[in-house]
């Protein structure tokens, strides 16, 4: 295989799309691409919009009650959580990414993929395991008390079930997004830039701080925004830790106070956080362009680290892997051995198969839809298309349960309308066609995880120089042909990345699956959660461990894809 041209993983679209193969001048009526893109975006935005429609119901006195009592807590806690996780994922993700991409030290080849492993651990599971370990009644503190003879109140130990605890838990499982995207960015950075910086006498630290990091900023921020959206949508961890945030507030208002309108208004407020995030991200790179100009690659000699630099590098990589993966996995493994989960064994393979096939289908669909939308946006960058694509990508920050309700309402309405029509005119009942089927489940996944595939695909498309489109079009190819024959081969790495990311995300997804699935249909996440939510942590361990194990394979594949994407990775040094 020869060196592929810029097989880029991530990085953002510039704010003024590079509009290749633009609409012919004078063409007014909406064309096929615009219509298709808008339609796909509208369908995917439907659940989000359905929930938002509640916002226009006039504020009830429940809203007043919330404002007077708990709203400030929700806002402050959510902000602190996002701030903390933001700092956490950057500190864990970026240095590690740079070290494994550009330096040489013992274990680097293992760290490269192992740093992604925490991605396979669902946030609520890591929260459960660490609580089991570090809680006052857990083995660690019990051991300390046994050694010292101290009792409650005699010594200080960090409270695991607290806001800082939640920050640590979420950072540990979400930093791989930042790691993944910044590593891809470091790898793809034109070797020339780095070589030039070296000839100018810039050392490893300076190269990182003054060249690599600023160049990688868009990718880092994309990873950061994914991690923060996931943080906002998290329910399991904050609920278990008893922290009042937007998500717990939405549930409490909707189901405890029985007021969907006020809950939707909370969700609306939460979405403004996301909008601010998006605006900040756009603003942070307002003038920048990130096309690469050099097509020449050669292997860049890595910085050889020695002495305490080397030890420090190893530590920076070992810490997140140990805390985010090894310790929880060992604890789960021990629990799984301790408990005999008799009733679940015969159908265990079935659970694995359900999880994997669902994740596979959803991943393919999410990537195809993202491709359609991103390409539509590239071809016809109008205000309407841009806005529609943005809205369709917002589902990622919305808790799965809220999405599920947003799916149930329109689907059931369609089913009942079709059924009513058929009964009236043909005297047959069609019953429920969409609701309660896997179509609904997969649709919800697409809504929820489109942002992941969309961001990755969009970033990759932006990196392809518009002149390529123009050249291909001038040779007589249609837009679809250009996409298939030119863009898709170039973006292969990114497409695979998007595919695997969505796959792992769906594998871990819980609330939407729980509510929307058909009869007798279970997945690993459902099984793990049902037992854990009944406070039977140990019993849930085998299913939880299976999710983690099933997630490892795609995660390793992911890492290989990225390594391969390195320009010149296979040219002789």
């Amino acid at each position, binding site marked *: 295989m020869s060196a592929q041209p810029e097989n880029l993983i991530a990085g953002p679209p510039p704010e003024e799309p590079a509009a290749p193969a633009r609409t012919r001048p004078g063409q007014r009526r909406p064309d096929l691409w615009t219509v298709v893109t808008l339609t796909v975006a509208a369908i995917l935005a439907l659940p989000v919009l359905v929930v938002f429609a509640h916002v226009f119901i006039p504020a009830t006195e429940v809203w007043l*009650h919330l404002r007077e*009592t*708990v709203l400030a807590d929700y806002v402050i806690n959510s902000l602190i959580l996002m701030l903390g996780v933001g700092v956490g994922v950057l500190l864990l993700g970026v240095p590690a990414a740079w070290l494994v991409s550009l330096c040489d030290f013992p274990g680097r080849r293992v760290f490269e993929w192992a740093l992604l492993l925490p991605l396979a651990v669902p946030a609520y599971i890591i929260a459960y395991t660490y*609580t089991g370990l570090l*809680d*006052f*009644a857990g*083995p660690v*503190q*019990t051991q300390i*008390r046994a050694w010292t003879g101290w*009792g*409650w109140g005699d010594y200080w130990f960090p*409270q695991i*079930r*607290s806001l800082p605890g939640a920050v640590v838990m979420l950072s540990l499982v979400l930093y791989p997004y930042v790691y993944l995207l910044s590593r891809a960015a470091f790898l793809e950075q034109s070797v020339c830039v780095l070589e030039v910086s070296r000839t100018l006498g810039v050392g490893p630290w300076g190269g990182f701080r003054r060249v690599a990091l600023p160049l990688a900023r868009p990718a880092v921020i994309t990873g950061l925004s994914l991690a923060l959206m996931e943080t906002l949508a998290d329910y399991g961890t904050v*609920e*278990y830790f*008893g922290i009042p945030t937007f998500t*717990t507030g939405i*549930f*409490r208002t*909707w*189901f*405890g*106070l029985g*007021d969907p309108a006020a809950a939707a208004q909370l969700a609306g407020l939460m979405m403004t956080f996301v909008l601010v995030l998006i605006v900040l991200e756009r603003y942070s790179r307002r003038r920048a362009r990130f096309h690469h100009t050099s097509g020449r690659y050669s292997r860049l000699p890595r910085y050889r680290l020695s002495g305490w630099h080397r030890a420090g590098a190893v530590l920076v990589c070992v810490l997140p892997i140990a805390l985010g993966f090894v310790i929880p996995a060992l604890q789960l493994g021990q629990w799984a051995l*301790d408990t005999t989960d008799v*009733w*679940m064994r015969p159908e265990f393979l079935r659970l694995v198969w*359900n999880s994997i*096939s*669902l994740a*596979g*289908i959803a991943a*393919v669909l999410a990537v195809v839809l993202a491709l359609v939308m991103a390409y539509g946006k590239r071809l016809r960058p109008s205000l309407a298309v841009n806005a529609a694509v943005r809205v369709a990508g917002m589902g990622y920050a919305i808790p799965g*349960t809220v999405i*599920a*309700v947003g799916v*149930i*309402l329109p689907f*059931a*309405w369609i089913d*009942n309308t079709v059924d009513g029509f058929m009964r009236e005119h043909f005297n047959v*009942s069609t019953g*429920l066609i969409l*609701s*309660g089927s*896997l179509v609904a489940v997969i649709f919800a996944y697409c809504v929820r995880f489109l942002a992941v595939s969309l961001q990755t695909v969009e970033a990759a498309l932006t990196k392809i120089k518009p002149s390529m489109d123009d050249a291909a079009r001038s040779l007589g190819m249609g837009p679809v042909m250009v996409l298939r024959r030119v863009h898709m081969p170039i973006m292969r790495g990114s497409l695979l990345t998007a595919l695997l990311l969505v796959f792992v995300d769906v594998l871990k997804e819980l609330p939407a699956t*729980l*509510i929307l699935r058909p*009869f*007798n*249909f*279970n997945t690993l996440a459902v099984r793990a959660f*049902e*037992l854990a939510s*009944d*406070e*039977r942590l140990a019993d849930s361990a085998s299913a939880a461990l299976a999710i983690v194990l099933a997630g490892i394979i795609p995660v390793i594949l992911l890492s290989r894809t990225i390594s391969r994407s390195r320009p010149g990775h296979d040219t002789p040094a």
Partner: protein
Amino acid sequence: MRTHRIITTVLLMSLALLPGILPAQGEVNVYSARQEALIKPLTDRFTEETGIRVNIVSARADALLQRLRSEGRNTPADVLVTVDAGNLHNAREAGVLQPVRSGILEAAIPASYRDPDGYWYGLSMRARPILYVKGKVDPQQLSTYEDLADPKWRARICVRSSSNVYNQSMTASMIIAHGEEAAEAWARGLTANLARPPQGGDRDQIRAAAAGQCDIVIANTYYLGQMHEGDESDRRAAEAIGVFWPNQDDRGVHVNISGAGVTAHARNRDNAVRLLEFMAGDEAQQWYARANQEYPVKPGVRWSDTLAGFGEFEADGVNLGLLGAHNAAAVRLMDRAGWR
């Protein structure tokens, strides 16, 4: 093209996922807010006995209710199984249940554990008593839930978050007994007496108490019961804990139920009623007591040894449906009282 092949493979794979589309004759469809592990063994026995297949979806009660409501007359569900009387009450109010008259059910289930019009029937019972650390608290000092708001218990109580429906129902029962104002004052007092901010589940409170973090816990009986049957460390924690039945001189200890109702548009209505009758039968009632440490609702069915060890008690006789009616008020006053 390779991509084509992948897509085709995935689409073909998806065929394997299609659920059984045709409604077979002998079946009954259940939406269950109890997790599958706590209902499947029973429905398996039901299938063995009657030949009627049971299909289950389990999820959160509120989400299932939402699903039932939007599916309307086309819903495939015949039975709704859920925990907490508040949820059953909400389901009736939402119009997704239908009244059922059955001599078997009425004979087996005492009136306070079922809807007066037959919309829902309680199938198992749990109490939420006061638990204390043996040796640190003299049970003579304990009396009522109301007393837990007294400053003498400052920094000695552990209880979980008020987002949990068990606490919401308990507070609703307080509203029914004393009115909203008094209930709010009680919630304030209780919150002030907490040893730590509410966190974790009921078992976590028991573990924390056994480890010395607090002296008094409010938790459901089956959690303590299950810990007695659990692993080494859980057993030791449970051994350290005593059960105190509060309010025995007035309204009785706060109890709640798990229960079920037949849906308004059930297509397999007869099978649904048969399933309910089976779950109220001796065998199923004993299973609840044994497998999940819940109290049978049917009088005369033997309790598990662990439950019997907790002793007999007088239960709050309030109609459990009322708890649901006061749920929103309970959530609000807990918000105001600062009970997280």
